[in-house]
């Protein structure tokens, strides 16, 4: 760089992650993170890097495998920190995640990894869930935020049944959806009455407690 000014750690990390440079990424994280303040490291370095990679994927400038591997590398680092990964976020909501109807779990795994990499504890309900399965689990576990991944349009449209059932049961649960059908049709999340749609895993993290997409 002509100015001689070093690039921010998040930018350097992003480059290492996009190259699947596990060793380099780990070194950047180690060098730029204080073990005493893991959450600071997550919010200042990990989340911006993952978010930028997610945006690149949505824009066609990165691939899904890069999103997946980046999340995995960051998750491994967070897990190596001297605090339990479930305890980094003190006031987190009760979060669940699952795949409706089918067994394509990559989207779920990628979001779950990004959530772990951001210090959230997540209850994984797995794949092949029916709406009634998921509704029961949400009730039993007192879920406050549910992430739903869907690959097929049919499964995506089933979210509407879930949101209607949640309303009928008087449950206040934030429903965040993601997956190919929502990516191709940016109004689909509204059609199924979800609270938000995440284009990518890092955006999913940013939606845990916040605004709609």
């Amino acid at each position, binding site marked *: 760089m002509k100015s001689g000014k070093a690039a921010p750690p998040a930018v350097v990390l992003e480059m290492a992650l996009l190259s699947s440079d596990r060793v380099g990424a780990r070194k950047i994280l180690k060098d730029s993170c204080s073990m005493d303040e893991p959450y600071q490291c997550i919010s200042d370095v990990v989340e911006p890097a993952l978010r930028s990679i997610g945006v690149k994927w949505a824009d066609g400038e990165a*691939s899904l495998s890069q999103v997946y591997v980046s999340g995995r590398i960051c998750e491994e680092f967070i897990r190596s920190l001297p605090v339990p990964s479930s305890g980094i976020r003190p006031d987190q909501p009760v979060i669940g995640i699952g795949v409706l109807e*089918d*067994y394509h*779990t990559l989207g779920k795994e990628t979001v779950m990894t990004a959530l772990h990499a951001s210090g959230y504890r997540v209850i994984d309900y797995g794949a*092949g869930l029916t709406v009634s399965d998921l509704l029961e689990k949400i009730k039993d576990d007192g879920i406050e935020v549910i992430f739903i991944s869907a690959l*097929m*349009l*049919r499964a995506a449209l089933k979210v509407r049944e879930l949101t209607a059932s949640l309303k009928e049961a008087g449950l206040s649960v934030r429903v965040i959806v993601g997956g190919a059908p929502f990516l*191709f049709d940016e109004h689909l999340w509204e059609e199924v009455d979800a609270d938000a749609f995440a284009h990518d895993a890092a955006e999913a993290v940013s939606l845990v407690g916040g605004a709609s997409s």
Partner: protein
Amino acid sequence: MTSLERTEAALSLTEADRVPLILNLTMHGARETGLSIREYYSDPANVVLGQERLRKRYGGDIMTGFCYGAAEAEAFGGETIFFDDGPPNAGAPPIRDIESLEAPDPATSPALLRMLTTTRILADRYGDTVPIAGVAISPFSLPVMQLGFGRYLDLLLAEDPLFWRLMEVNREFCITWASLQIEAGATAIVYFDPVSSPTIIPPELARKTGLAIAKEIIREIPGPVAYHLASGRALPIAKDLIGSGAVAVGVSALESLADLKEAFKGEIAIIGNLDGVSMHRWSMDTATQKVREAIEMAAPGGGFILSDNHGEIPWQVQDPVIRAIADAADLYGRYPVP
């Protein structure tokens, strides 16, 4: 012109009487015949009747014996989950041990055998005038159903020797399956390979793996091949797709048809790219407009086949919209297009 002549003209990069239209209607045959989707796919006679009725209702320049992708995973021991209102889906991944895996004979798999029978009947009845499309999932993309996406990516990205062992098995299966369909009378094979798309893996990795495998496979399939990325992006690997030996490429709604036309012009035909997901909510006017726009961007000079971008129109897309697409294709697709 017959549908076959029209499609051949497009694949030869010339203008026919009008733009060929591929309506990838598979499940809709069940609606036409009044059967559940499961029942419909259980007997080739049902699928033949469904294909006949769909062609009569909407026109369209292709027929197919293809039923559902999970059938290929069934040949490897997988289960298929049927729904009343959507495509059959692959159940839990069936493969645990890659080392001892052997390629099954597609001709002994009941679901694939039904597709072969359907292809044979359609080819006998209509093959002289209508292209009969066969479908084969690429060796590189089939593992998504065989292993699950996460496990497969781990295998691929770790450069594990078992990855190449799996490719060897799948390669044999794919070539055999595609060849059987050609023998049964399929005019061409649609080679579905979404994992090689830059949407899923970086182009440089695809060039060392999926795209290299595709080039070998396409050479060995005894008939023309259309390379379909099933909604995945194509532009960053356009040159590789052109060099793959395929005669056409199925392109995504995520990319501009004008850019795609420019990238593939004079090289191979493009098939696409109406968005099947939002299609279920289109009005008839929207359908007409989308068709018109696609034709204006990609039809001039030939080498364009109008279709959806995924290779299958969702069950939720209803008759008025399909009819509007077909009518607009007929109205605006006549050469010379404006």
